[in-house]
């Protein structure tokens, strides 16, 4: 690999990358992040390779990251010289020959086409790349233009600028999109100027706390120490957050470039990227990125002839949720049990191996090259007064089209939910949960709230790392609270009493609630416990653990009262429900009969079945298959 020391070197690699991105023959791109692979993208990729070989066509078949169209996977993008780029999906492995035939004979497969791109805006360069020469060819006219599509219209892809476009394992393609230009630029700046730029941009930590990044960097720069570290936290195991994985798998260099810039600004010589266990593909792609950057001289001694030296180690975590907390993460890096320590010793002064350490989340790092390239002023005009830039949101739950999206801060939650194309089985939206277990549950009316650190926290939730979970009327608030508390109990490290014992007691009381034997006194006790945990816990895990309980009590008190009366309105708490079939809705299709594992559902052909309550174990298998939603709990 070529060493990159000057602007001319970077240009040369860029040209090479452009040849890969826009070759004189078709380029076929397969979305190959883990979630895509779960839907068969790897099989599609090999089928495409085979088909290209068989037909003797000159074309490149390359893996790319996640486009965000998770509900249309496996997705395939096709770029042909002079023609619009088209995204297709789903393209299943067995459909590949048919798909390729259409592309060859008509240039386009209308059946599977989703969007077309005539011209693409290159964020970092501020230029556009025009795919088409002349007018849009007739065959492509019926396909909606990418920027007109409702799914993309309200999005602004800053962090995900390359996701789904470039091969994440190609440094050349990253550079062709303007990558590592910001790194070259910072070496013309003083470290303090870099920090000033990040501060003026108003960037705040994307892991949940929302701490100003510039201020964090500055305190670490000022701290005394011969050795300093910069760390990247890619270990947030918030349940319901597919996006960290997606970013790692789609564009590892964007994170790495940010980290190197941060190291220069802070004066760090060593860095670690701490990746959650269970992210093997993200791990592999990040390791490749580090290796390639090192081979190009973008890591190591005297980077780009600047005199600045820095190197990175990629570390796999042990799989503990609490290791998303800064001091626990550092303990884990040192090879110890990942337990947090009190916060009065600042990690900016005494962090990893007692040296000054700066830790930022991967999304925060991926923002940095953009701020340097486009300038603080450009960045700060996106978002709200105190929450700047964009936020990647993983939209999932009971929604039709779960997706990965990126929107400007300040976007109303409703607009994001609308990108999901409505609720599963057209049920009603009941609640929104944002921010993972540390966040709160908000009622459907809160959908008008903007995506903003401070406004969400005032409403009793938390932006967290950006998981937006949509819940329908079949979600029981008591059950979901119990679920989150159980998650946190399992993940609590057990070091401090308020968190360890508090969670245990809260769950005991919640269990009484879901059995229908909870009392008003129990609720009072739980509120008291919550306060003690918020005030007394050592780290954020314990401090924020009661959020789900306090928010559900605040917004859904009626549901707690119903449980105290022995009823579960959503039909989720097993001790309080009985399954029955509503004969006025049932279509007598008989699907529910064979799926019952205990033969509790019985009936003859074309007649409404009945459920034997003595046998029924309330496992939900029949409800799952009932299209008419005739089975009530």
């Amino acid at each position, binding site marked *: 690999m070529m060493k990159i020391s000057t602007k001319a070197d970077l240009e040369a690699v860029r040209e090479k990358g452009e040849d890969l991105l826009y070759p004189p023959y078709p380029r076929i791109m397969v979305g190959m992040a*883990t*979630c895509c692979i*779960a*839907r068969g993208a790897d099989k599609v990729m090999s089928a495409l390779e085979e088909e290209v070989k068989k037909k003797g066509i000159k074309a490149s078949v390359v893996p790319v990251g996640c486009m965000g169209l*998770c*509900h249309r*996977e496996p997705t395939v993008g096709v770029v042909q010289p002079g023609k619009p780029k088209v995204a297709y999906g789903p393209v299943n492995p067995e459909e590949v020959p048919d798909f390729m035939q259409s592309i060859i004979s008509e240039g386009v497969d209308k059946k599977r086409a989703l969007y077309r791109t005539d011209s693409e805006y290159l964020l970092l360069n501020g230029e556009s790349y025009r795919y088409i020469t002349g007018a849009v060819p007739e065959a492509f006219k019926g396909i909606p233009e990418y920027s007109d599509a409702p799914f993309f219209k309200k999005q602004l892809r800053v962090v995900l600028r390359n996701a789904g476009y470039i091969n994440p394992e190609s440094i050349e393609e990253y550079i062709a999109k303007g990558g590592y230009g910001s790194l070259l630029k910072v070496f013309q700046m003083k470290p303090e100027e870099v920090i000033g730029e990040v501060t003026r941009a108003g960037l705040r930590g994307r892991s949940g706390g929302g701490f100003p990044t510039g201020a964090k960097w500055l305190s670490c720069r000022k701290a005394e120490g011969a050795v300093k570290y910069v760390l990247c936290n890619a270990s947030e*195991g*918030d*349940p*319901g*957050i*597919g*996006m960290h*994985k*997606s970013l790692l798998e789609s564009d590892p260099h964007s994170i790495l470039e940010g980290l190197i810039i941060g190291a220069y600004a802070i004066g760090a010589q060593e860095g670690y990227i701490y990746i959650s*266990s*269970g*992210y093997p593909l993200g791990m592999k792609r990040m390791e490749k990125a580090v290796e390639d950057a090192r081979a190009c001289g973008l890591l190591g001694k005297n980077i780009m002839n600047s005199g600045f030296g820095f190197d990175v180690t990629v*570390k*796999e*975590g*042990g*799989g*503990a*949720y609490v290791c998303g907390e800064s001091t626990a993460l550092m303990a*884990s*890096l*040192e*090879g*110890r*049990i*990942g337990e947090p320590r009190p916060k009065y010793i600042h990690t900016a002064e005494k962090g990893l191996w007692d040296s000054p350490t700066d830790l930022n989340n991967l999304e925060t790092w991926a923002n940095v090259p953009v701020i340097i390239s486009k300038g603080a002023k450009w960045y700060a005009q996106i978002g709200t007064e105190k929450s700047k830039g964009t936020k990647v949101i*993983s939209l*999932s*739950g*009971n929604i039709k089209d*779960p*997706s*990965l999206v990126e929107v400007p801060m300040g976007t109303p939650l409703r607009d994001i939910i609308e990108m999901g194309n409505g609720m599963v089985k057209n049920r009603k939206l009941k609640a929104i*949960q944002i921010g*993972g277990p540390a966040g709160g549950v908000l009622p459907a009316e809160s959908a008008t709230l903007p995506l903003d650190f401070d406004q969400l926290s005032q409403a009793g939730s938390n932006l967290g790392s950006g*998981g937006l*979970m949509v*819940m329908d009327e079949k*979600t029981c608030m008591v059950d*979901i609270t119990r*679920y*989150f508390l159980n*998650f946190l109990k*399992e*993940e609590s*490290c057990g070091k401090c009493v308020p968190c360890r014992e508090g969670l245990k007691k809260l769950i005991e009381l919640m269990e009484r609630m879901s059995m229908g034997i909870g009392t008003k006194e129990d609720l009072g006790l739980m509120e008291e416990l919550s306060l003690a945990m918020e005030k007394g816990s050592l780290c954020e895990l314990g401090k924020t653990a009661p959020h789900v309980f306090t928010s559900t009590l605040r917004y859904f008190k009626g549901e707690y009262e119903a449980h105290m009366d022995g009823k579960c309105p959503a039909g989720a708490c097993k001790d309080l429900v009985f399954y029955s079939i509503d004969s006025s809705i049932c279509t007598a299709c008989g699907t529910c009969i064979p*799926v019952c*594992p205990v033969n509790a559902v019985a009936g003859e052909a074309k007649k409404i079945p009945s459920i034997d309550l003595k046998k029924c174990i309330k*496992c*939900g*298998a029949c409800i*799952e*298959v009932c299209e008419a939603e005739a089975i009530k709990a």
Partner: protein
Amino acid sequence: MADHLEEKEIESAVKKFGAKKEALISILQEIQKKQGFLSEETVLCLSEKLDIPVSQIFGVASYYRAFSTQPQGRHTIQVCDGTSCHLKGGSHLLTRLERELKVAEKGTTEDLKFTLEKVRCQGYCHVGPAVKIDDTVHGSVTQEKVVKLIEEQK
């Protein structure tokens, strides 16, 4: 003491990451991948090689989810119970599998064929509920489908 083959694997893991205290987690990960679990003998052997007390290594091995101190089945079934999968019935899938395999969560079947685990979000939220069998992720799993998937492995 660990047998000859095990000791060789332990040695190569120590060599790969260095006999340093901070390399403990990486070394354990390597051995876990090779041997499927961390045996008592492995821990004793490592304690000597790295000069770390046995109690501390057991502490680390039992703290992190990535490690197990019991032999694992030939197939590992991971049922996701992250929030998104939970909302779509992930916990029902787990209960169903416990019934089908006659084994509790974190347990291994008597014939050492399957180990059943509950996992918390591996990032498959968009294809949930998800079940991972060995290295293959299955999305949009129903109870009916999960029973079939197990049959296929048998």
